[in-house]
């Protein structure tokens, strides 16, 4: 190949050329000497006649180069040499960028995985979640049959079951799905087959189970022969049909189910009788593909005609919520909204961090360019073009930003991988599937390039208006660095950003601290929770309450136990809670629109109030005599009393009605509490005796007389052995209640941690920014300071001259940032409970933090300014 030969011959060409030019000048000089010039004169004249030898040689060589590629390579090598010369600057810049770009990549990785990336199913763009409050199974059947907008509609509920493969029964999380589920999602099995709509023939007709790939991999060791074998689910025989493909985990991104079973077998598995009950709304999510050509708006109109049909046909059972559509992945709008808002906010903040980093590096770069002004001027004077110098500068900034971007990307990939395998709640198969993909890499690259250009562009102006003659004559202080307005603005912006971050992280931390010590309406300290699902252990009917009573009695006998109670679902336990519509005593038409309220509903045993630490304000707690033979009774909270009964002091003794029409007498009044999440407003709640409304899945609450904070495991072990003594086959999860509450604090914790990290980074950036500016201004004005000292300036005056500007900028930036931060925390209050910007401690904290940052950053430059020795200074020049 021609060009390969060229590469090898190039060196020869270059040598030939130099030799040729040397001989040319020599020949010309000899000629001139023959014409009578002196040797020295002749050589000079010959050179002058030849022109700029270096430039011409370079231009001749360029003929042979791939012009762009090779000169870029030359620039890169030059830039590397320059950067190596100032390794401190280089490492500071790379570290800053790595942090800033890394933070952006992490936040974008999460945003991308949870919101931007389409769901990992075929044709995800036409897949929608159909939202309708909560639906019953008959509602779903009607929807499926009557809608005209969807190809088909699938539904699923989530439950826990005991899976027995012959050895070691264990709890599994199952999706109970409509038979058409896999077909609606257009998924093919990894091995075996899926169940289909054609497998369903009425209740309990499809005892089939499909394993998730992960469960098959972990519990069956990729054994292909399991297909066709029979396992026991809650003691009932089910046949394994097949295995779902790897990576498939349904339409909810953060929930990884272990197995899939047909929903028609729900009653068999749970022991409930709710499959055909229209008033039991327990469907978790309804999904379907829109038919081609149908818009979401048309689909919603169609769905709401189904809704009005349902409302007309079943006025007593149907709720008021209209149909809406949402993107799948985050359980519709329920999590999509807050997650999207929070991640967008974080993305914005980390974008600001990057911008601050660019501002920071930009001013460093400008300072560097100013310091190198003499070199630049010299190069300009020697015939280098301004383009060439700018290109060299941009090469430097891009090299830095690419190195920083690469380092940041590596760090963010590691972090995202860790996040992906992290399970924040031990009891739930919840995780954050945020493994990075190509778009994360692309974003990091683009961010690196953009920031490289951004901070590279800062000194461009300086270089373009540089006048080599002036600079070479006057020295570097003459032309550059007198007017630093752009850099001042950059610094103020950067400090403001930092102050925003510091403010919001402080508000978040304070809110978190307060919410951890707020009144939940119960006392999680010194209490243990044991999650017992008796249906999983094979108990049904009359045996359930008897067994529940036996467990409570046995646990109460443990020494050191104060009290024991049961509740069907503890308050503040994710993912939700039970609610039941109630009516005033005078209401006769019990349709949903006439309901007085939809309070939280807890089915509890007599000991619950004492065990949970819920204080009884009036009346009595339940007794074991409040059973199915006794009149129906309830304990309500204050909010319930004032909202539904109309009076708090006289609440006890009044009546209200449940949805099934039964009259309930209020026998007790308890304090208000938090039920679903910490940010909710005050909600009504009612407690019914477990014996009057039985449930097979209950949580035992065990209160200890001793302080459990140090050693909860001792009590846990005692509880375990007592319960195992009653039934060895029981699946048990025993944890301190305060640990269990970690789940509800998870969003605020995440918010606090991420804001804290960003705040810290913002703080670091403004330290380096202020430091850079202060150090630079001191070093530039060293001579001036020396003269001031020589003329009798006091220490205070010197400091004012040297650092006054830095402090002024710091004050402006902090002020702006504080105001913006306080405005921003109004948004924060939705995520972090009790986050309020009107907190004197936060205000003082921000001011203190910013002052501390300023002092820290100006400490060294101040020392340097004070050390000015006018004698030494003036002697130097």
């Amino acid at each position, binding site marked *: 190949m021609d060009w390969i030969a060229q590469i090898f011959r190039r060196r020869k060409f270059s040598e030939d050329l130099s030799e040729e030019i040397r001989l040319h000048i020599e020949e010309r000089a000899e000629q001139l000497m023959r014409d009578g010039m002196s040797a020295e004169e002749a050589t000079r004249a010959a050179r002058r006649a030849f*022109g700029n030898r270096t430039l011409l040689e370079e231009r001749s060589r360029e003929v042979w180069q791939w012009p762009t590629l090779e000169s870029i390579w030359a620039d890169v090598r030059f830039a590397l040499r320059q950067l190596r010369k100032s390794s401190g600057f280089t490492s500071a810049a790379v570290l800053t960028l790595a942090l800033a770009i890394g933070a952006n990549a992490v936040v974008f990785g999460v945003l991308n995985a949870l919101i931007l990336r389409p769901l990992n199913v075929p044709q995800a763009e036409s897949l929608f979640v159909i939202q309708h409050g909560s639906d019953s199974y008959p509602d779903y059947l009607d929807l499926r049959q009557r809608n005209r907008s969807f190809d088909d509609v699938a539904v699923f509920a989530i439950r826990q079951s005991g899976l027995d493969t012959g050895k070691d029964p264990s709890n599994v999380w199952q999706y109970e799905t409509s038979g058409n589920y896999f077909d609606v999602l257009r998924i093919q099995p990894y091995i075996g087959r899926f169940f289909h709509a054609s497998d369903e023939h009425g209740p309990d007709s499809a005892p089939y189970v499909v394993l998730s790939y992960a469960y098959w991999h972990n519990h069956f060791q990729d054994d292909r022969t399991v297909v066709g074998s029979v396992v026991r689910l809650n003691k009932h025989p089910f046949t394994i049909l097949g295995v779902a493909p790897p990576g498939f985990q349904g339409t909810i991104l953060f929930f990884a189910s272990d197995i899939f079973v047909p929903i028609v077998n729900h009653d068999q598995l749970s022991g409930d009788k709710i499959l055909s009950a229209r008033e039991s709304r327990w469907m978790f999510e309804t999904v379907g593909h829109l038919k081609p050509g149908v818009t979401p708006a048309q689909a919603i109109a169609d769905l709401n005609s189904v809704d009005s049909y349902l409302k007309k046909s079943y006025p007593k059972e149907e709720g008021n919520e209209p149909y809406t559509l949402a993107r799948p992945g985050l359980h519709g709008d329920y999590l999509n909204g807050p997650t999207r808002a929070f991640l967008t906010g974080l993305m914005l903040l980390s974008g600001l961090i990057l911008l601050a980093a660019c501002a920071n590096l930009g001013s460093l770069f400008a300072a560097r360019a100013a310091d190198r002004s003499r070199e630049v001027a010299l190069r300009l004077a020697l015939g280098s073009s301004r383009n060439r110098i700018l290109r060299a500068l941009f090469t430097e900034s891009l090299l830095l930003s690419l190195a920083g971007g690469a380092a940041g990307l590596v760090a963010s990939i590691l972090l995202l991988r860790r996040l992906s395998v992290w399970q924040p709640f031990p009891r739930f198969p919840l995780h954050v599937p945020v493994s990075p993909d190509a778009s994360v890499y692309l974003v990091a690259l683009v961010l690196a390039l953009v920031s490289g250009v951004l901070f590279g562009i800062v000194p461009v102006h300086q270089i373009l208006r540089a006048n080599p003659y002036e600079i070479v004559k006057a020295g570097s202080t003459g032309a550059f660095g007198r007017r630093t307005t752009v850099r001042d603005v950059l610094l103020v912006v950067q400090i403001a950003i930092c102050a925003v971050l510091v403010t919001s992280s402080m508000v978040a931390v304070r809110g978190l601290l307060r919410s951890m010590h707020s009144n939940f309406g119960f006392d999680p300290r010194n209490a243990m929770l044991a999650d017992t699902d008796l249906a999983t252990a094979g108990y049904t009917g009359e045996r359930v309450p008897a067994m529940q009573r036996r467990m409570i009695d046995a646990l109460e006998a443990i020494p050191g136990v104060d009290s024991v109670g049961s509740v069907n679902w503890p308050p503040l336990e994710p993912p939700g809670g039970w609610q039941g519509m109630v009516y005033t005593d005078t209401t006769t038409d019990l349709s949903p629109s006439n309901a007085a309220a939809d309070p939280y509903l807890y089915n509890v045993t007599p000991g619950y109030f004492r065990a949970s630490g819920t204080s009884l304000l009036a009346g009595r707690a339940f007794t074991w005599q409040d059973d199915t033979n006794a009149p129906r009774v309830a304990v309500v909270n204050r909010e319930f009393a004032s909202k539904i009964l109309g009076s708090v002091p006289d609440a006890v003794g009044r009546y209200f009605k449940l949805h099934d029409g039964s009259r309930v007498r209020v026998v007790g009044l308890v304090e208000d509490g938090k039920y679903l999440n910490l940010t909710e407003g005050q909600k009504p709640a009612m407690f019914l005796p477990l014996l009057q409304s039985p449930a097979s899945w209950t949580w035992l609450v065990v209160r200890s007389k001793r302080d459990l904070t140090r050693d909860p495991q001792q009590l846990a072990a005692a509880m375990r052995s007592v319960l195992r003594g009653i039934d060895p086959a029981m699946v048990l999860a025993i944890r301190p209640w305060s640990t269990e509450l970690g789940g509800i604090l998870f969003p605020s914790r995440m918010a606090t941690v991420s804001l804290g990290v960003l705040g810290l980074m913002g703080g670091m950036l403004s330290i380096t920014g202020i430091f850079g500016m202060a150090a630079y201004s001191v070093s530039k004005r060293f001579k001036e300071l020396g003269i001031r000292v020589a003329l009798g300036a006091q220490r205070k005056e010197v400091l004012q001259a040297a650092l006054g500007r830095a402090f002024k900028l710091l004050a402006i930036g902090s002020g702006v940032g504080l105001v913006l931060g306080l405005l921003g925390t109004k948004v924060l209050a939705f995520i972090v409970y009790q986050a309020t910007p009107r907190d004197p401690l936060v205000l003082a904290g921000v001011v203190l933090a910013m002052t501390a940052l300023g002092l820290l950053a100006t400490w060294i430059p101040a020392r340097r300014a004070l050390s000015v020795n006018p004698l030494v200074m003036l002697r130097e020049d």
Partner: protein
Amino acid sequence: MPVVNKAMTEANSRDLFPGALEMMILESLRRVPAHGYALVQHIQQRSNNLLQVEEGSLYPALQRLLKAKLVKAEWQLSSTNRRVRTYQITVRGLRRPEQQISSFERMFEGISLVLNPGKAITS
């Protein structure tokens, strides 16, 4: 002043019409092979010293011609016993100038007409 600087750089970088120097080199080499110094002498003499070409600017042009394989170069000893790199026109180079000259002449004619609207071209 920066403006002056800029103007100077521009003047240096643009030797003549683009391609004019190459054409003159080829035209000279067509008669006899020569080395760089001789070529400069030749061009200046032939133009009655009207064309004051910066001597060095010959070399980038020569490299362009070498690359296009219109000339080839060889180290030789000159008649004055001096080591010189002699350029010789190739067959390809021989064919080239005719079309270029004619297009150049047309351009030159156009320019002359614009500059001296009264005069007719005598050639």
